[in-house]
């Protein structure tokens, strides 16, 4: 393989496999960031973008057969295939993502648990405090278990906030369909939901667009993965920030030192964070920050509930 020739022999050859284009200023861009960090650390890296789930096995094997020592699949949809290929290639190290703790995890596979529900909990508190109509919308992509978990966590947050607000979850059917996101957001807004908690990838820029033209300080939107306040500071409320360099580097070190398996649970201080916009009213802001603190201190236990949302 061509890009392999760059790396000096001692260093790892790390490959990343991404589900979308690295230009998405979102999940996959973060993936590339993490790889870059690894590269700084002397590893030689290579990546494949826009890999569809049906093609993942082929891609994994390709990297294995072209001599990569660590292969990371970015996105929990890739877990099963990664585990399977890992079993076939005991002398190569793999990193996969999973929501929760998998069964019979191979000896040469590290797992990153993105722990979305924990990080979404404070948003429930924030939303409940921000909403004046008492209606909060959740804008998801595909109705998947991790998405259900987010919804349940938000409900718990709203619950704990003491405010009475109810949550309206909808799914656009595609994390990246910006247009559908726009349409659904407009629908939610016109349905009286004044706070939108989004859990999309590319799609979210559409959600912002739908916010345009509505009164500042009246409608709010929260986003996932990367700070998107630039889109529309007036309506931007918060981001659940993710930084995959943290888990990746940590795991690479572990592998270096011989531990080839384990679970890295992301969370506050461990690659995940909640950053709250400046325009957000202070008491709402404080409530949310308090919630974060409680989770960190273990005062609140955010329950993982992946049961379907009816």
């Amino acid at each position, binding site marked *: 393989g061509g890009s392999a020739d760059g790396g000096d022999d001692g260093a790892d050859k790390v490959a990343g496999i991404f589900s*979308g*284009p*690295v*230009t*998405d*200023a979102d999940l996959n*861009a973060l993936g*590339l960031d993490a790889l870059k960090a690894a590269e700084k650390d002397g590893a030689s890296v290579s990546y494949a973008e*826009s890999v569809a789930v049906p093609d993942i096995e082929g891609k994994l094997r390709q990297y294995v057969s072209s001599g990569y020592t660590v292969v990371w699949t970015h996105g929990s949809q890739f877990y099963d295939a990664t585990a399977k290929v890992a079993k076939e290639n005991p002398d190569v190290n793999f990193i996969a993502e999973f929501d929760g703790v998998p069964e019979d995890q191979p000896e040469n596979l590290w797992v990153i648990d993105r722990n979305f529900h924990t990080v979404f909990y404070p948003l429930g508190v924030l939303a409940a405090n921000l909403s004046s109509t008492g209606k909060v919308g959740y804008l998801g992509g595909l*109705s998947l278990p991790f998405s259900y978990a987010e919804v349940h966590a938000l409900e718990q947050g709203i619950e704990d906030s003491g405010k009475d607000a109810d949550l*309206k979850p*909808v*799914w656009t*059917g*595609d994390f*990246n*369909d*910006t*247009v*559908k996101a*726009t*349409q*659904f957001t*407009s*629908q*939610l807004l*016109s*349905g009286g939901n004044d706070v939108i908690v989004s859990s999309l990838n*590319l*799609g979210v*820029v*559409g959600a*912002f*667009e739908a916010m*345009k033209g509505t009164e500042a300080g009246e409608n709010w939107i929260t986003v996932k993965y*990367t*700070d998107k306040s*630039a*889109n529309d500071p007036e309506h931007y409320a918060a981001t659940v920030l993710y930084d995959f360099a943290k888990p990746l580097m940590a795991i690479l070190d572990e592998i270096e030192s011989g531990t080839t398996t384990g679970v890295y649970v992301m969370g506050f201080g461990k690659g995940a964070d909640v950053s709250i916009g400046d325009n957000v009213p202070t008491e709402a802001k404080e409530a949310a920050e308090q919630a974060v603190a409680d989770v960190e201190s273990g005062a609140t236990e955010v329950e993982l509930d992946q049961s379907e949302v*009816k």
Partner: protein
Amino acid sequence: MTEFLTLVVPMWVVFTLAAQGTILSGRAGVFNVTQEGVMALGASVGSVVAYKMGSNLGGLLVAFAVGALVGLVLTYMTTQLRMDQFVVGLALFFAATGAAGLLYREVIGVTMTPPKIDTLAKIDIPVLSDIPVIGEPLFRQDYVFFFVVLLSVAMYWFMQRTSAGLDFRSVGENPKAADSLGINVTLARTWSTVVGSGLVAVAGAYFPLHFTGIFTDGMIAGRGWLVIALAFLGGWRPLYVVAGAAFFAGMDVLGQKAQVIGLGIPHQFIEMLPFVATLLVMVFAFRWARQPAHLGLNYDRESRLAG
């Protein structure tokens, strides 16, 4: 109601614009299947240019030009080289889709702060926009909307009410007859495909310029194929297409509304509605749903088989 219309109109614009572009060449016998790709290309070009030039109109115009270029390639390969319209179309669909992504990647690249553009401003038609229910959604819109309305009427007028249109349509119905009467088949097919394909690209550019303020990968999400279905639904007639597009857009919005309101049924079934409904409509559509007799067939003056 007002709010429903407001939600429907933008999608109507996209569907109508792209479908008019499709039937324009279709009536001349060119079956254009590049929509999904050309719309993506239009979206990419549109947003990139609008971002760099700081002019949305500029974005739309360049998008049109690029789409027109694809159309030119399509007609050259089908009218001059007589290559299969379907295959060439699909190949161009590939190329355009690829080019869309490449362009954005080359110009914008990897960034955490996406290049947002200000979406199209709305124009207010004084008095009319104050009409109760329909005024707001129909007379407070961006200029693309008004353009599409005019375009649709103009295309109807041209095709059904002018002798130029009579000649034009004959090219799609019986090119040999048209040719034998001195009508330039190649010319008709070329200009209609060039213009039509340009319009399709503009429809694509409308996504970033109206909905999202930015190009994103795969933002057309299959709507290009729906446009082809729409052309058949509308029987390749401008005004029927207007209605068909409204139907598509309407069902689309209703589907979402149903989900937001939250009926008991799984949202997947609600999302099926537009397509299922269209199929049902088609069952009664055979009266009007006829297509140009030579749609998709190349014309070769000295051959018996084509004529």
